[in-house]
């Protein structure tokens, strides 16, 4: 059984399967006109906002793009945290671009 599975598995490892996975990835981004690097930027900003209020377990964060078809996409996020930020930290300007100060300066 394992032998059959491994044979089957090896077959799936062909470059055809790689091609399919790579295509899935680029098309997800092509279809929403949001390239991967912009997506990463967005994730960082989302996490920075949440981290103002909660202590986020950064290593276990998962924010993924799910696509049922060409027209329907959604972001699915799992953002584990271990508790509230201490009150004084919450008022820190951890997100300069969003803080009142930088808005005044710009």
């Amino acid at each position, binding site marked *: 059984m394992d032998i059959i599975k491994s044979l089957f598995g090896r*077959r799936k490892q*062909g470059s*055809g399967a790689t*091609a399919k996975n790579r*295509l899935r990835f680029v*098309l997800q981004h*092509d279809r929403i006109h949001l390239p991967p690097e912009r997506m990463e930027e967005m994730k960082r900003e989302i996490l920075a906002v949440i981290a103002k209020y909660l202590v986020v377990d950064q290593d276990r964060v998962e924010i993924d793009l799910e696509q049922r078809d*060409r027209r329907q996409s959604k972001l699915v996020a799992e953002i584990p945290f271990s508790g509230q930020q201490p009150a004084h930290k919450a008022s820190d300007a951890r997100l300069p671009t969003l803080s009142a100060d930088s808005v005044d300066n710009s």
Partner: protein
Amino acid sequence: MENEERSRGDARVITVSSGKGGVGKTTATANLGISLASLGKRVVVIDADIGLRNLDIIMGLENRIVYDLVDVVEGRSKLRQAMIKHKKFDDLFLIPAAQTRDKMAISPEDMVRVTDELREDFDYILIDSPAGIERGFRNALEPADEVLIVTNPEVSAVRDADRIVGLIEAAEKGPGKLIINRLKTELVRKGEMLSSDDVYDILGLAIIGIIPEDEMVLSASNSGIPVTLNMNSQAGMAFGNVARRIMGEDVPFMNLDGNPGILRRFLRLFDGR
């Protein structure tokens, strides 16, 4: 029945597009035109790739051109004068592209005007679209009743096909149907090429044709006799099947992947139509 349909004369305009160049759009257009004509249909094929004309040479009609599509649009020739009758089929005509102009010489509205003038007298008008997503593609898309998208089972071709699919849907000409060209059965079997099933999973479009890689396609283009006229060619046979599917026939897919599951799946797809 056949005569009634003919006298009513309301052609379907089918645009053959691809996104990426070099995947076999022109070969597909030529072969579908020939196949439909050999099945008794009245057909015009239009080369909309202004500046890079090729449909004439694939069809073996390059030495008969007097006027071209731009001549018609700019009023130097009547439509009929620019239509080149095929050597073998009396009801198959080519309107060649201009070779010395560019795609800006023609507008989407021009294409609608030209095809509207032809609709009454023909059953099918096939438009060979240029590659890309720019003006030339817009020209070819505007008059379309339906769109075929040619792709190869290869990452860049599938990616560009997806882009075109989005544009076709945005223009409300969708969903379009897929022709997978140059499938190498042996490589698919080894897992070293995207299968037609993979391409279907990724693009989510109905597949109207799977054309196997076939060396005879090259000799056909060398000699200007489209491969579908060659009874020994698998690719030629596959193009013939596409033509019959266009006409609404329920033609089973040739079993190229050696996987019966795939075949059944496509049949189901078309039963739903």
